[in-house]
Protein backbone atom coordinates (compact mmCIF):
# COMPACT_ATOMS: atom_id res chain seq x y z
CA UNK A 1 0.00 0.00 0.00
CA UNK A 2 1.43 3.38 -0.97
CA UNK A 3 1.56 6.29 1.48
CA UNK A 4 -1.00 8.25 -0.58
CA UNK A 5 -3.46 5.36 -0.59
CA UNK A 6 -3.06 4.96 3.14
CA UNK A 7 -3.81 8.65 3.75
CA UNK A 8 -6.81 8.43 1.46
CA UNK A 9 -8.05 5.49 3.50
CA UNK A 10 -7.73 7.44 6.72
CA UNK A 11 -9.54 10.48 5.32
CA UNK A 12 -13.08 9.24 5.67
CA UNK A 13 -16.14 10.28 7.66
CA UNK A 14 -15.79 7.54 10.30
CA UNK A 15 -12.24 8.65 11.14
CA UNK A 16 -13.09 12.33 11.45
CA UNK A 17 -11.85 13.72 14.78
CA UNK A 18 -11.66 17.48 14.24
CA UNK A 19 -13.52 19.78 11.88
CA UNK A 20 -14.87 23.28 11.73
CA UNK A 21 -18.05 23.70 13.75
CA UNK A 22 -21.16 24.67 11.79
CA UNK A 23 -21.66 27.68 14.09
CA UNK A 24 -18.57 29.19 12.47
CA UNK A 25 -19.49 30.70 9.11
CA UNK A 26 -17.42 30.15 5.96
CA UNK A 27 -16.49 33.84 5.71
CA UNK A 28 -12.75 34.21 5.56
CA UNK A 29 -11.53 36.00 8.68
CA UNK A 30 -10.06 39.45 8.21
CA UNK A 31 -7.56 38.92 11.02
CA UNK A 32 -3.81 38.87 10.38
CA UNK A 33 -2.09 35.46 10.09
CA UNK A 34 -1.75 33.84 13.50
CA UNK A 35 -4.17 36.18 15.30
CA UNK A 36 -5.55 34.76 18.55
CA UNK A 37 -9.04 36.12 17.77
CA UNK A 38 -9.57 33.34 15.26
CA UNK A 39 -8.90 30.64 17.84
CA UNK A 40 -11.16 32.30 20.42
CA UNK A 41 -14.00 32.74 17.89
CA UNK A 42 -13.72 29.07 17.04
CA UNK A 43 -13.78 27.97 20.66
CA UNK A 44 -16.86 30.07 21.44
CA UNK A 45 -18.57 28.66 18.34
CA UNK A 46 -17.73 25.11 19.42
CA UNK A 47 -19.16 25.68 22.89
CA UNK A 48 -22.35 27.15 21.39
CA UNK A 49 -22.70 24.10 19.15
CA UNK A 50 -21.99 21.61 21.92
CA UNK A 51 -24.44 23.26 24.34
CA UNK A 52 -27.00 23.55 21.51
CA UNK A 53 -27.70 27.21 22.26
CA UNK A 54 -27.23 28.74 18.80
CA UNK A 55 -30.83 30.01 18.78
CA UNK A 56 -30.52 31.48 22.28
CA UNK A 57 -27.12 33.19 22.12
CA UNK A 58 -26.60 36.88 21.44
CA UNK A 59 -23.07 38.19 21.01
CA UNK A 60 -22.07 41.80 21.52
CA UNK A 61 -19.05 42.83 19.47
CA UNK A 62 -16.76 45.74 20.37
CA UNK A 63 -14.85 48.39 18.49
CA UNK A 64 -11.36 47.20 17.63
CA UNK A 65 -10.07 44.35 15.47
CA UNK A 66 -12.98 42.14 16.52
CA UNK A 67 -15.61 44.73 15.52
CA UNK A 68 -16.49 42.36 12.68
CA UNK A 69 -16.78 39.28 14.92
CA UNK A 70 -20.40 39.16 13.78
CA UNK A 71 -19.21 38.08 10.35
CA UNK A 72 -17.90 34.80 11.72
CA UNK A 73 -20.32 33.27 14.24
CA UNK A 74 -23.73 32.28 12.94
CA UNK A 75 -25.74 33.78 15.79
CA UNK A 76 -27.56 37.06 16.42
CA UNK A 77 -25.18 39.91 17.17
CA UNK A 78 -25.22 43.48 18.39
CA UNK A 79 -22.33 45.75 17.48
CA UNK A 80 -21.58 48.17 20.31
CA UNK A 81 -19.98 51.60 20.43
CA UNK A 82 -16.39 51.57 21.71
CA UNK A 83 -16.31 50.17 25.26
CA UNK A 84 -20.07 49.99 25.70
CA UNK A 85 -20.65 46.28 25.07
CA UNK A 86 -21.37 45.49 28.76
CA UNK A 87 -24.17 48.11 28.77
CA UNK A 88 -25.81 46.52 25.71
CA UNK A 89 -25.40 43.08 27.25
CA UNK A 90 -26.89 44.29 30.54
CA UNK A 91 -30.15 45.35 28.91
CA UNK A 92 -30.25 42.35 26.60
CA UNK A 93 -29.79 39.86 29.44
CA UNK A 94 -32.29 41.63 31.71
CA UNK A 95 -34.94 41.90 29.00
CA UNK A 96 -34.45 38.32 27.80
CA UNK A 97 -33.37 36.35 30.89
CA UNK A 98 -33.63 32.99 29.11
CA UNK A 99 -30.94 33.92 26.57
CA UNK A 100 -27.16 33.52 26.61
CA UNK A 101 -25.50 36.90 26.22
CA UNK A 102 -21.78 37.44 25.87
CA UNK A 103 -19.56 40.42 25.13
CA UNK A 104 -16.37 40.05 23.14
CA UNK A 105 -13.95 42.87 23.90
CA UNK A 106 -10.31 43.76 23.42
CA UNK A 107 -8.05 45.53 25.89
CA UNK A 108 -8.49 49.01 24.46
CA UNK A 109 -12.25 48.58 24.37
CA UNK A 110 -12.69 47.00 27.81
CA UNK A 111 -9.80 48.30 29.89
CA UNK A 112 -9.57 51.86 28.58
CA UNK A 113 -12.63 53.53 27.11
CA UNK A 114 -15.06 50.96 28.52
CA UNK A 115 -13.63 50.78 32.04
CA UNK A 116 -16.76 52.23 33.67
CA UNK A 117 -19.15 49.94 31.81
CA UNK A 118 -17.24 46.74 32.58
CA UNK A 119 -16.66 47.55 36.25
CA UNK A 120 -20.33 48.34 36.84
CA UNK A 121 -21.62 45.36 34.85
CA UNK A 122 -19.31 43.16 36.96
CA UNK A 123 -20.41 44.88 40.15
CA UNK A 124 -24.09 44.38 39.35
CA UNK A 125 -23.38 40.75 38.57
CA UNK A 126 -25.13 40.82 35.23
CA UNK A 127 -25.94 37.31 34.02
CA UNK A 128 -23.55 37.46 31.06
CA UNK A 129 -20.22 36.10 29.87
CA UNK A 130 -17.42 38.59 29.18
CA UNK A 131 -14.68 37.43 26.82
CA UNK A 132 -11.75 39.79 27.26
CA UNK A 133 -8.90 39.47 24.78
CA UNK A 134 -5.73 41.03 26.15
CA UNK A 135 -2.89 41.40 23.68
CA UNK A 136 -1.45 44.54 25.29
CA UNK A 137 -1.96 46.76 22.26
CA UNK A 138 -4.53 48.50 20.05
CA UNK A 139 -4.59 46.37 16.91
CA UNK A 140 -7.09 47.93 14.55
CA UNK A 141 -5.84 51.51 14.80
CA UNK A 142 -2.28 50.42 14.14
CA UNK A 143 -0.54 49.26 17.29
CA UNK A 144 -0.92 52.02 19.87
CA UNK A 145 -0.37 51.71 23.65
CA UNK A 146 -3.20 50.08 25.62
CA UNK A 147 -3.84 50.14 29.38
CA UNK A 148 -2.46 46.60 29.41
CA UNK A 149 0.75 47.40 27.47
CA UNK A 150 3.73 46.14 29.46
CA UNK A 151 6.34 48.37 31.09
CA UNK A 152 8.88 49.30 28.47
CA UNK A 153 6.88 47.80 25.60
CA UNK A 154 7.31 49.65 22.33
CA UNK A 155 4.11 50.67 20.56
CA UNK A 156 3.17 53.36 18.04
CA UNK A 157 2.35 55.78 20.87
CA UNK A 158 5.09 54.61 23.22
CA UNK A 159 7.88 54.52 20.63
CA UNK A 160 10.62 54.60 23.30
CA UNK A 161 8.88 51.97 25.42
CA UNK A 162 5.99 52.44 27.82
CA UNK A 163 7.01 54.70 30.70
CA UNK A 164 4.89 53.57 33.63
CA UNK A 165 6.04 56.60 35.59
CA UNK A 166 3.99 58.80 33.32
CA UNK A 167 1.36 56.44 31.86
CA UNK A 168 0.58 54.26 34.87
CA UNK A 169 1.20 50.55 35.22
CA UNK A 170 -0.40 47.87 33.02
CA UNK A 171 -3.86 47.20 34.42
CA UNK A 172 -4.63 43.75 35.77
CA UNK A 173 -8.32 43.79 34.97
CA UNK A 174 -9.07 40.21 36.01
CA UNK A 175 -7.58 40.86 39.44
CA UNK A 176 -9.64 44.06 39.69
CA UNK A 177 -12.97 42.51 38.76
CA UNK A 178 -12.38 39.44 40.91
CA UNK A 179 -12.64 41.76 43.93
CA UNK A 180 -16.22 42.66 43.03
CA UNK A 181 -18.92 40.51 44.62
CA UNK A 182 -20.91 40.49 41.36
CA UNK A 183 -18.40 38.32 39.51
CA UNK A 184 -18.76 34.56 40.00
CA UNK A 185 -16.08 33.18 37.74
CA UNK A 186 -12.90 35.03 36.81
CA UNK A 187 -10.19 33.24 34.91
CA UNK A 188 -7.18 34.09 32.76
CA UNK A 189 -6.42 31.73 29.90
CA UNK A 190 -4.40 31.61 26.71
CA UNK A 191 -4.70 29.87 23.34
CA UNK A 192 -1.18 29.23 22.05
CA UNK A 193 -1.05 25.44 22.43
CA UNK A 194 -3.55 22.63 21.99
CA UNK A 195 -3.62 22.19 25.78
CA UNK A 196 -4.28 25.88 26.33
CA UNK A 197 -7.10 25.84 23.77
CA UNK A 198 -8.71 22.86 25.52
CA UNK A 199 -8.54 24.69 28.86
CA UNK A 200 -9.92 27.85 27.30
CA UNK A 201 -12.84 25.89 25.90
CA UNK A 202 -13.62 24.47 29.33
CA UNK A 203 -13.56 27.99 30.78
CA UNK A 204 -15.88 29.40 28.13
CA UNK A 205 -18.23 26.47 28.56
CA UNK A 206 -18.26 27.07 32.29
CA UNK A 207 -19.13 30.72 31.61
CA UNK A 208 -22.16 29.80 29.49
CA UNK A 209 -23.18 27.15 32.04
CA UNK A 210 -23.08 29.86 34.70
CA UNK A 211 -25.43 31.91 32.53
CA UNK A 212 -27.78 28.94 32.30
CA UNK A 213 -27.74 28.57 36.07
CA UNK A 214 -28.29 32.35 36.45
CA UNK A 215 -25.11 32.58 38.50
CA UNK A 216 -24.08 36.04 37.34
CA UNK A 217 -21.09 37.36 35.52
CA UNK A 218 -18.30 35.14 34.20
CA UNK A 219 -15.16 37.00 33.17
CA UNK A 220 -12.77 35.16 30.89
CA UNK A 221 -9.55 36.95 30.02
CA UNK A 222 -7.46 35.49 27.24
CA UNK A 223 -3.85 36.59 26.96
CA UNK A 224 -3.24 36.65 23.24
CA UNK A 225 -0.86 37.90 20.62
CA UNK A 226 -0.83 40.68 18.06
CA UNK A 227 1.95 39.82 15.69
CA UNK A 228 1.33 42.87 13.49
CA UNK A 229 1.34 45.23 16.45
CA UNK A 230 4.25 43.52 18.14
CA UNK A 231 6.11 43.33 14.83
CA UNK A 232 6.99 39.67 15.29
CA UNK A 233 6.06 36.53 13.40
CA UNK A 234 3.11 34.53 14.80
CA UNK A 235 5.41 31.91 16.30
CA UNK A 236 7.81 34.52 17.69
CA UNK A 237 4.78 36.29 19.15
CA UNK A 238 3.83 33.20 21.11
CA UNK A 239 7.37 33.02 22.52
CA UNK A 240 7.33 36.73 23.39
CA UNK A 241 3.96 36.28 25.08
CA UNK A 242 5.21 33.40 27.19
CA UNK A 243 8.34 35.29 28.22
CA UNK A 244 6.81 38.70 28.84
CA UNK A 245 3.04 38.52 29.20
CA UNK A 246 2.60 35.39 31.32
CA UNK A 247 4.83 36.57 34.20
CA UNK A 248 2.82 39.79 34.51
CA UNK A 249 -0.57 38.28 33.61
CA UNK A 250 -0.35 34.83 35.23
CA UNK A 251 -2.72 32.22 33.85
CA UNK A 252 -5.24 30.51 36.06
CA UNK A 253 -8.60 30.93 37.74
CA UNK A 254 -8.85 33.79 40.19
CA UNK A 255 -12.37 33.14 41.36
CA UNK A 256 -14.93 30.36 41.00
CA UNK A 257 -17.96 30.60 43.24
Amino acid at each position, binding site marked *: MTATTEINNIISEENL*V*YKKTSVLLDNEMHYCPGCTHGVIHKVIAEVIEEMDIQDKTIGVSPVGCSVLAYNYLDIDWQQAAHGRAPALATATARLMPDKYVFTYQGDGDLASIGCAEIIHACNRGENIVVVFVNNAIYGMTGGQMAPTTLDGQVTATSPYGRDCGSTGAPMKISEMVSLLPGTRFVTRQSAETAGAVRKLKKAIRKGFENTREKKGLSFIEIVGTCSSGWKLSPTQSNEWMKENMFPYYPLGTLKDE
Partner: protein
Amino acid sequence: MAKFKGAIVVDTEKCKGCGLCVVSCPTAVIELARGVNGKGYHYAHMANPDACIGCSSCGLVCPDTVITVYRAKAS
Protein backbone atom coordinates in the same frame (compact mmCIF):
# COMPACT_ATOMS: atom_id res chain seq x y z
CA MET B 1 5.02 2.42 16.48
CA ALA B 2 2.17 4.80 17.22
CA LYS B 3 -1.19 3.27 18.10
CA PHE B 4 -2.97 5.71 15.80
CA LYS B 5 -2.45 6.81 12.29
CA GLY B 6 -3.66 10.26 11.34
CA ALA B 7 -4.10 12.59 8.44
CA ILE B 8 -5.03 16.20 7.99
CA VAL B 9 -6.74 18.08 5.21
CA VAL B 10 -5.82 21.74 4.87
CA ASP B 11 -8.09 24.22 3.10
CA THR B 12 -5.04 25.64 1.39
CA GLU B 13 -6.83 28.61 -0.18
CA LYS B 14 -7.96 29.83 3.23
CA CYS B 15 -4.67 29.10 5.01
CA LYS B 16 -2.69 32.25 5.88
CA GLY B 17 0.57 30.41 6.50
CA CYS B 18 0.97 31.63 10.08
CA GLY B 19 2.87 28.48 10.99
CA LEU B 20 1.22 27.96 14.37
CA CYS B 21 0.20 24.43 13.32
CA VAL B 22 3.80 23.68 12.39
CA VAL B 23 5.09 24.37 15.90
CA SER B 24 2.09 22.74 17.56
CA CYS B 25 2.62 19.40 15.86
CA PRO B 26 4.27 16.92 18.26
CA THR B 27 5.49 14.68 15.46
CA ALA B 28 6.76 17.31 12.98
CA VAL B 29 4.29 16.38 10.28
CA ILE B 30 3.46 19.86 9.00
CA GLU B 31 5.53 22.33 7.05
CA LEU B 32 4.72 25.45 5.12
CA ALA B 33 4.73 24.80 1.38
CA ARG B 34 7.38 26.26 -0.90
CA GLY B 35 4.58 27.32 -3.21
CA VAL B 36 1.91 29.87 -2.37
CA ASN B 37 -1.88 29.96 -2.52
CA GLY B 38 -4.01 32.50 -4.35
CA LYS B 39 -3.39 35.07 -1.63
CA GLY B 40 0.35 34.58 -1.71
CA TYR B 41 0.62 32.65 1.55
CA HIS B 42 2.89 29.64 2.00
CA TYR B 43 0.14 27.28 3.09
CA ALA B 44 0.51 24.42 5.55
CA HIS B 45 0.71 20.87 4.28
CA MET B 46 1.66 17.40 5.46
CA ALA B 47 5.36 17.15 4.63
CA ASN B 48 5.83 14.03 6.69
CA PRO B 49 2.45 12.26 6.58
CA ASP B 50 3.68 8.96 7.99
CA ALA B 51 4.33 10.60 11.34
CA CYS B 52 0.79 11.96 11.79
CA ILE B 53 -1.02 10.49 14.78
CA GLY B 54 -4.24 12.50 14.29
CA CYS B 55 -3.89 14.30 17.64
CA SER B 56 -5.75 17.44 16.42
CA SER B 57 -3.25 19.87 17.98
CA CYS B 58 -2.88 21.66 14.64
CA GLY B 59 -6.62 21.95 14.24
CA LEU B 60 -7.07 23.33 17.73
CA VAL B 61 -4.49 26.10 17.40
CA CYS B 62 -5.35 27.07 13.82
CA PRO B 63 -6.83 30.61 13.97
CA ASP B 64 -8.53 30.24 10.61
CA THR B 65 -9.96 26.77 11.24
CA VAL B 66 -8.69 25.47 7.94
CA ILE B 67 -7.52 22.06 9.19
CA THR B 68 -9.69 18.95 9.35
CA VAL B 69 -8.21 16.00 11.22
CA TYR B 70 -8.79 12.27 10.75
CA ARG B 71 -7.56 9.42 12.86
CA ALA B 72 -7.68 5.65 12.48
CA LYS B 73 -6.27 2.77 14.53
CA ALA B 74 -2.88 1.82 13.18
CA SER B 75 -3.14 -1.36 11.14
